[in-house]
């Protein structure tokens, strides 16, 4: 019996028996914790915090159906069945033997179906049926320089650029939504948090839940880019590159872009070339400023473009701006501001860092 009276939040968090109770995996007859929490009301806060922590740090599951697991197990049993049947019959009798014959048949049938479509993503169907009415022809590859609009059957829209192909996984929409892209495309993904949308290209994997973004991965081009318009996406390197370089993933927010440098297998986070306004500024109409304090201007730009701008507020608090910055792209706006206050900026890790000596 453990001395639970002395446990702190983290002790409970680490305690398997407690975790099982919180996650509901204990048998219903086990009323230990129910009783214990009733007997120790002064521990209520600690218990609640430990519970919250356990739920927050539950590992996200990769769903596999019990049916699939059963089928796979039967396939293994079938594959090892051919030799040494006798000890099995001896032990288990005819009942199980008969059952096994039936299962064996099913397993072989399912096994043959499964193992034909083995390994490698390249077996993913070029299933033109999934491309919807806009694309009745079964040729997803289209060398002619034209843009193609495709609606996937989950409602996601894909604008396929010239010389690009899109293939849809056989099991698209079952537990995940996976597509394989060569070339470039803009995705407008229908929101479905249960089924992550994964775009595989030769070099990177982009994972989203519902958002709009663009990918360019042409074989003949130097680098690969993924840029985000709305929402958030995660970019990983694809497994085909040497494993040593498979370390990180990058999370992108609007107007950020991931660049995959083919030469050294690096993923870098930066900003898109021309950040677009996410929403119109509210406080100052149309970026028109008269003697406005610079920090306020920067914060407004930050909000309008959804891009983090790092600056020293203390240093810039005496700097003012009188300007009309309505139509310039973000980077031009920044250049203008920097010229006015003798500062400079650079893009580091998808953020803008502004350095200045301040104003008198």
């Amino acid at each position, binding site marked *: *019996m*453990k001395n639970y009276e002395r*446990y*702190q939040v*983290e*002790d409970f968090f*680490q*305690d*398997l*028996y407690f*975790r*099982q109770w919180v996650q509901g995996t*204990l*048998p219903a007859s086990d009323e*230990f914790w129910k009783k214990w929490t009733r007997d120790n009301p002064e521990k209520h806060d600690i218990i*609640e*915090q430990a519970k*919250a*922590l356990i*739920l*927050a*740090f*539950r*590992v*996200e*599951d*990769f769903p*596999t159906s019990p049916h699939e*697991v059963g089928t*796979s*197990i039967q*396939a*293994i*049993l079938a*594959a*090892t069945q051919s030799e040494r049947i006798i*000890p*099995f019959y001896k*032990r*288990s009798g005819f009942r199980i033997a008969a059952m096994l014959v039936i299962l064996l048949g099913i397993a072989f049938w399912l096994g043959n179906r*499964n*193992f034909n*479509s*083995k*390994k*490698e*993503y390249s*077996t993913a169907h070029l299933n033109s049926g999934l491309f919807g009415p806009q694309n009745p022809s079964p040729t997803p590859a289209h060398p002619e320089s034209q843009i193609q609009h495709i609606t996937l059957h989950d409602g996601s829209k894909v604008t396929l650029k010239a010389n690009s192909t899109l293939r849809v996984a056989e099991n698209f929409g079952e537990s995940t939504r996976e597509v394989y892209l060569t070339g470039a495309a803009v995705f407008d993904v229908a929101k479905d*948090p249960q089924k992550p949308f*994964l775009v595989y290209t030769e070099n990177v*994997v982009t994972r989203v839940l519902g958002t709009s973004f663009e990918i360019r991965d042409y074989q003949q081009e130097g680098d690969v880019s993924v840029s985000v318009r709305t929402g*958030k996406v*995660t970019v990983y390197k694809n*497994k085909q590159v*040497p*494993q*040593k370089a*498979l*370390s990180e993933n990058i*999370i992108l927010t609007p107007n950020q872009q991931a660049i995959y440098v083919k030469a050294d297998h690096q993923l870098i986070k930066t900003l898109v070339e021309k950040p677009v306004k996410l929403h119109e500024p509210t406080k100052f109409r149309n970026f028109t400023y008269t003697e406005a304090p610079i920090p306020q201007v920067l914060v407004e730009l930050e909000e309008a473009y959804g891009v983090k701008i790092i600056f020293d507020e203390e240093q810039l608090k005496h700097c003012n701006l009188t300007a009309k910055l309505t139509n310039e792209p973000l980077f031009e706006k920044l250049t203008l501001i920097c010229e006015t206050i003798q500062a400079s900026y650079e893009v580091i890790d998808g953020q803008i860092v502004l350095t200045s000596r301040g104003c008198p």
Partner: protein
Amino acid sequence: MSRPQHYPPYPNHSSVSDDGGNDTVLWQCFRAGDRLAFERLLEMHYASLLNYGLRMSRDQEFVKDCLHDLFVDLWNKREQLQEVHALKPYLVVAFRRRLIKESSRNQWFRKADEVTDDYDFEVQFNIESYLINNEVRHESLVRLKANLEKLTKRQREVIYLRFYQEMEYEAIAQSLEINYHSVVNLMYEGMKLLRKNWFLVLVATCNLLS
């Protein structure tokens, strides 16, 4: 909780701490060619190994094929196999080596010895998905997010084995082929990143997980 070595052991009435001598016996039966033991082995370990493998590679067919081949090979070579007392770590190690070997098979240019320690391992926590999918402005949640991003793959793997696969430190050490103290340290460092923020998790939890 300043001393990482003093995490409490499991209570005795826990329902999963029953593998004391059973693994040894089950393995002996399996090596002797007992089909029921083999079935039991598959029932006990197939699903959790599949889950482990999918975190190393997203290609489900590939992972399943490796796992299939692993068990078929184990059966065919059962008479030459060693005695094993803890099956899960044994199987995890065998499976991981096979996955790494198979996935590097086509990459003839890679040297044999640089394969083992750096493999991909994907583990995401509920709170993390929440933070990714929702705009968080609260400063401490932003900090928590930053801390989560600092967790290494190995720390995530340890946390995964501990809390998802519900393995003990000793078994985790065997599974990762590192020593016991390294596991405790990985875990401790991982938890340290999160510890300062635990109270904030409450805030988020109220909105998202209940």
